[in-house]
């Protein structure tokens, strides 16, 4: 009786093997309809409501599903989207938007002025402990003047406010925005499977230039090493942010594009704790560090050195000369330490979120560099969750290596957090001159003047050594040679609509 069963089982296993082996031989199916599979390192363990999503990894995917009244371009400009035109009046106090005709949501319903007002009001609503978009606390009112016109009036004039109007417009009628995202973007949501994939398809009623590729699957590749194998095996066609080592490995068979991550990576110092409350100590650390050496070790020299909280994608605000504020100089660093009362150095802890390898690697090199001036740094790896609660929210840390990015294309997005009263000023930086310069920048309506004040802010951060600035990390995108058209943005987004098949 046993033998019959055993034979049957054996047959079953052999069939399985045959299927397994067969499955590898021909992986690509017929490509009658265009499709692409894009690997992403983290799942969208998040709300799919564009206003509530918090993870950068979620936002960069949702970018393809949603649009605001205006939207950013890859050059860092803002162009009309759901609105066809806008007008700024009263020195940046009143913004009037004319809605574009014929814009439809993914469910086929047209975008109305009510939807726009609903979306903006939702983000400005303070009943849940604060507005979803912090900058919206400046909104006085959102009024519908006619079917095609929405007027946003601010409490205080802000000439940069347009940048926040990239906030997604969603239909007021959607009952489950958390799990059923409906927007106006070039792609619409199809399905998702936790820890597995997120699937979207082309929205054929898109108002503008339609996307090129019909079906897009974002596949979660949590295991860093399987990325190269996945790419080579053909189970994913693209992966943004491969490491320098992987990029080198892939460069023969794939197009490896190089851009920047658009973030300020630094050793962020808690300016409120000893010894970092002493500017000489902070400066000493800056003198001990050589960003170029860090880049050489962790990414074969790729990356952009930074000297303050601003990265080159911002163009007019970026000040390259600040990179030279501190040249590696151990003697000077030791001198400063001695002046500050630490002739024999000191020891401190660098808290690093464990989910992001470049930061961990950077911290390791920093430890070595600080050792040269007699300072002992210890690395403490923490889960992202603990990092958020301990470091970011409770500010209970000595120093941390992370990258801070910009949520919008404004100088304020990067610089506001260092004003002494900012709620997200997690380094407890406090400097009256800085607060004044920043207030001036916000208040000025003239672009040149605004730029001048922002630059003053950056200079203060650099000379005051608020943090040990390191770099804007390099970003390597590996793209299957069958596809082309990838564009880098100055924001943390992936624009899939521009991708196309080479044969297209």
């Amino acid at each position: 009786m046993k033998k019959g069963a055993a034979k049957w089982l054996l047959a079953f296993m052999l069939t399985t093997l045959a299927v397994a082996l067969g499955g590898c031989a021909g992986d690509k199916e017929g490509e009658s309809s265009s499709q692409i599979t894009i690997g992403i390192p983290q799942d969208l363990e998040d709300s799919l409501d564009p206003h509530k999503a918090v993870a950068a990894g979620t936002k960069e995917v949702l970018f393809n599903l949603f649009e605001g009244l205006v939207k950013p371009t890859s050059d860092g400009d803002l162009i009309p989207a759901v609105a066809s035109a806008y007008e700024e009046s009263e020195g940046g106090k009143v913004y009037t938007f004319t809605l574009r005709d014929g814009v439809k949501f993914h469910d086929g319903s047209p975008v109305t002025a009510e939807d726009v007002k609903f979306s903006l009001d939702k983000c400005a609503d303070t009943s849940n402990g604060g507005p979803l978009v912090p900058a919206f606390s400046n909104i006085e009112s959102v009024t519908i003047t006619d079917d095609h016109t929405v007027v946003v009036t601010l409490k205080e004039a802000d000439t940069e406010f347009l940048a926040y109007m990239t906030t997604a417009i969603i239909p007021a009628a959607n009952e489950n925005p958390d799990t059923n995202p409906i927007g106006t973007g070039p792609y619409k949501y199809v399905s998702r499977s936790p820890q597995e994939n997120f699937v979207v398809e082309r929205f054929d009623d898109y108002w503008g230039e339609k996307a090129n590729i019909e079906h897009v699957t974002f596949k979660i590749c949590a295991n860093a090493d399987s990325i190269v194998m996945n790419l080579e095996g053909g189970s994913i066609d693209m992966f943004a942010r491969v490491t320098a080592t992987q990029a080198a490995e892939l460069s023969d068979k794939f197009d490896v594009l190089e851009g920047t991550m658009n973030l300020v990576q630094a050793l962020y110092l808690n300016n409120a704790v000893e010894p970092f409350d002493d500017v000489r100590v902070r400066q000493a650390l800056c003198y001990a560090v050589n960003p170029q050496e860090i880049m050489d070790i962790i990414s074969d020299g790729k990356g952009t050195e930074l000297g303050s909280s601003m990265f080159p994608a911002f163009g007019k605000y970026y000040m390259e000369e600040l990179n030279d504020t501190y040249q590696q100089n151990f003697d000077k660093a030791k001198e400063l330490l001695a002046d500050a009362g630490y002739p024999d150095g000191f020891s401190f802890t660098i808290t690093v979120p464990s989910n992001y390898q470049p930061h961990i690697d950077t911290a390791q090199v920093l430890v070595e560099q600080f050792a040269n001036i007699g300072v002992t740094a210890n690395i403490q790896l923490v889960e992202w969750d603990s990092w958020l609660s301990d470091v970011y929210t409770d500010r209970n840390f000595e120093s941390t290596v992370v990258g801070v990015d910009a949520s919008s294309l404004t100088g304020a997005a990067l610089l506001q957090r260092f004003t002494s009263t900012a709620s997200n000023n997690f380094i407890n930086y406090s400097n009256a001159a800085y607060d004044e310069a920043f207030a001036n920048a916000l208040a000025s309506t003239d672009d040149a003047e605004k730029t001048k004040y922002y630059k003053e802010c950056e200079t203060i951060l650099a000379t005051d050594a608020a943090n040990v600035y390191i770099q804007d990390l390099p970003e390597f995108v590996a793209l299957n040679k069958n596809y082309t058209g990838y564009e880098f943005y100055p924001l943390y987004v992936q624009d899939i609509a521009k991708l196309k098949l080479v044969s297209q």
Partner: protein
Amino acid sequence: MRYAGKKILTMCVTLFAVTLFVFLAFHMISGDPVTSMLGTQATPERAEALREELGLNDPVLVQYGRWAAGFLKGDMGTSYSYRMPVSEMIVDKLPVTITMTLMAFVWMILIAIPVGLYAAKHEGGVVDRIITVVNQIIMAVPPFFAGILITFVFGMIFRLFTPGGYVSYQVNTGKFVGYLFFPSLAIALPKAAMAIKLLRSSVISELKLDYVRTAYSRGNSKRSVLYRHVLKNAMIPVITFLGMALSDMIAGSIIIEQVFGIPGLGRILLTSISNRDYPVVMAVIVCIATLVLVVNMIVDVIYGLVDPRISVE
């Protein structure tokens, strides 16, 4: 019948204790779900408002009561991080874990029974000695290391499969089963080695018993004695082991999933633990626990059927 009732009762009590324990545990550890839900946008006011909305400010036992009541009604709650019904996630992932475990079980039987019997039949022979030594070594290999070795040898050198190239059963069942081929082998190998050892010694000691000699003297062939009489008796201790192995494999699949990049219950469990997404954690644990307990019960029943000496009370 009384026996089965007792078993089921024990099972329910176990589940109750475990869920209560996990629930309490989650309220004692640092970090709450709100932190990861709000991320860098968290302000004390927004965090407080969200906590209130989710009912996290209620006493723990009230929260547990709410959860348990919902669960009994078939509502597993909503995931904090995915905001989707937990039941949907479980339904999506459970087949993966079950398929993988069953395949591993099949592997184990396919490997263990023929090899074990062969070794026992040829006790002391060269092949038997080799089997014994190899067996001892395989038993010492942790399943995840077996997985890594298999990935390296079959995935990277022979390119028989693409590591990480998992295909969902909803997309292509054939490829799905195909991808699970090697992971299930990795889970099965160490267990198969233990089963071989057990079966071998069990058959050998059975062969030395009087009834076997009697059977021979009656002119039965060695083959028929082995398959008709010996195997049946020798299987009794092995069945207990197979049952235990099956429940071990359910739990072991959590680790193997991680090695082969398979998005099953294990992956969901681990990420939910770090996101403090406890509705998901609770559901996954209840699922795995129920699977294990059901397997244990089935083994008890089979045991009773096979071994007449043990009467089901």
